[in-house]
């Protein structure tokens, strides 16, 4: 199987209030099209790990490779471009831009990428919204949507540039059971159909149980990795 992400020997320290090692020599690899869950108790370092993988946090020791490209030690502008093209994010607190419509929120990363014309971007954004069942809300301001709806729109936004990897920090963290089910099904589908890789940090045992593989962390180390 093709490896899409390689993380080797990650060490990360927090300096406030005292020096504290959050990640201790973490190494792992992810296959293309794999649906991976990272689980563990609060404070075990799983979110920190995810933000290192996301390239937004650059203060760490270790080597990160995504899609065969070395990303550790690169400058911010390069990483911004790389994120734009290859990575999609879904956060715990949905995080849409409230002044923009649903459609505009989905379109923004694609407009930034500039690969397609504005018309094509709009067409693609509609397709993504259709996939998550939100096309009827396209022209609504995103601040007028419910939490579950916003989370689905955030997924559509994460998918707009057809990223290699979609990352989620507790993507179902504050959703009810129905919405959690919907979000999970969307992830499941894009991993299976489009062979896009999903890496999700989660507390939800049901969510983790549905994934291809679960990595369990404790005290900054990977303690187990098992396939479902």
């Amino acid at each position, binding site marked *: 199987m093709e490896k899409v992400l390689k993380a080797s020997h990650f060490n990360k320290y927090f300096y406030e209030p005292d020096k504290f090692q959050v990640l201790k020599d973490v190494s792992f690899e992810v296959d293309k099209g794999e649906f991976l869950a990272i689980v563990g108790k609060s404070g075990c370092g799983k*979110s920190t790990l995810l*933000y290192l993988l*996301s390239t*937004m*946090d650059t203060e760490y020791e270790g080597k990160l490779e995504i899609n065969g490209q070395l990303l550790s030690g690169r400058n*911010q*502008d390069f990483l*911004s*471009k790389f*994120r*734009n*093209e290859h990575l999609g*994010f879904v*956060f*715990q*607190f949905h*995080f*849409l*831009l*409230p*002044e*923009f419509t649903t459609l*505009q929120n989905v379109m*923004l*990363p694609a*407009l*930034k*990428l*500039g690969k397609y014309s504005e018309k094509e971007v709009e067409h693609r954004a509609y397709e993504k919204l259709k996939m998550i069942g939100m096309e009827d809300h396209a022209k609504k301001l995103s601040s007028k949507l419910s939490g579950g709806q916003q989370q689905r729109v955030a997924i559509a*936004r994460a998918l707009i540039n057809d990223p290699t990897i979609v990352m989620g*920090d507790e993507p179902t963290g504050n959703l009810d059971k129905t919405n959690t089910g919907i979000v999970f099904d969307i992830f499941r589908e894009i991993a299976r159909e489009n062979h896009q890789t999903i890496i999700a940090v989660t507390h939800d045992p049901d969510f983790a149980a549905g994934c291809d593989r679960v990595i369990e962390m404790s005290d900054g180390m990977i303690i187990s990795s098992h396939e479902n």
Partner: protein
Amino acid sequence: MNLKITTQIARTHLMAKKRQTLVAMLGVTFGIAMFITMISFMQGVNQFLEDSALDASPHVRMYNEVNTQRPALIDQLNRSDSAFNVIYHQKPKEQLSRLKNGLLIARRIGREPGVLGVSPQLSTQVFYNNGPIQISGTIAGVDIDRENRLYNLKSRLKSGTIGALQSNPNGLIMGHVLARKLNVHTGDKVSVTTPTGGTMILRVVGTFGFGIGTLDNSKSYANLSTVQEILQKDAGYITDIHIKMIDPLQAIPFGRKLRAMYGYYTEDWATANSAILAGEQIRNVMTFVVSMTLLVVAGFGIYNIMNMNVINKIKDIAILKATGFEGKDIVLIFLFQAIFIGLLGGLLGLLIGFTLSYLLSITPFNTGDFITIKTFPVIFEPKYYGMGILFGLITTVLAGYFPSRKASKVDPVSILRG
């Protein structure tokens, strides 16, 4: 492409918070409106004072200074190192204040390049008598056409005409305050007595007002030949040559040149009006300081609002960065907002500034006899409007740049982790 998407985001931000945008804009508007009003009014006052002083004085005046120091004759004839001469009560040499060949000199100066006009004249101290009233003043014998060319006398006349002086050899155009003190009107007669004792009855054919006290309450114009006649001098006798230049700044070197050429004293307008020029400089500095203060205050207002804007939008900035926007895109987004606010607020400021200046320029302003204006002096100079919008833009761009640079440095991880 990036420019397009960043402007779109900036526009959405501005439209979403219309009231906040308006408040920020009004800050700029107020600053620039006040700047325009201030500078138009202050420069108007400067221009008016300069005009009223300089219009009434020649750029160069050539005259013969009679009280020159001279060595005693005995010192020249009987010099020795072993003795010294004591002279009491030495009288100045009997000397006329005339310019020799004055009319010829005037004609030659008139042909020099850069000279707008020359008016040779004969000026003397006199007493004006009307019944029991005696007032001392001066009388200038002039060629009234030439004098008009230099000082635009026609527009200064309060009554009578210039033609009346030409057609009446014993006519007199009198300062209007002097005329009032003497209780004479156009058509009345007044007796003029010179220091040497000559007396003549002249008829007032007009009154003038320069707006300058020392002229309006002591000076009169008569024909050159009339004054020569009172003084019992020949037809070539003149004491002053007044010169106006096309470029007033040329007057200073030109005066020096004339002095070297003809040997008579020359006085230029800058020396004669040094107090007015110093006052003008002080007012310019004051205008500049006040205007700058206004713009800086407006700038701080925008800075505050932009800063708040960035703090309010910090989550959005984190999302934009997470989804692939670079630091410079974020700077552009907020800079566009600042420029929009600066440009629109500035243009509105120009409009309001113009309106205020216009209203000021038609406000009645009564100052009595000496000042010849009826409304506040305001000048409308496109240069100031250009400066206003330029300063407005510079301050808003600076005030927008610092918060936006801060925004571009936001660490998305710390925001998104909550």
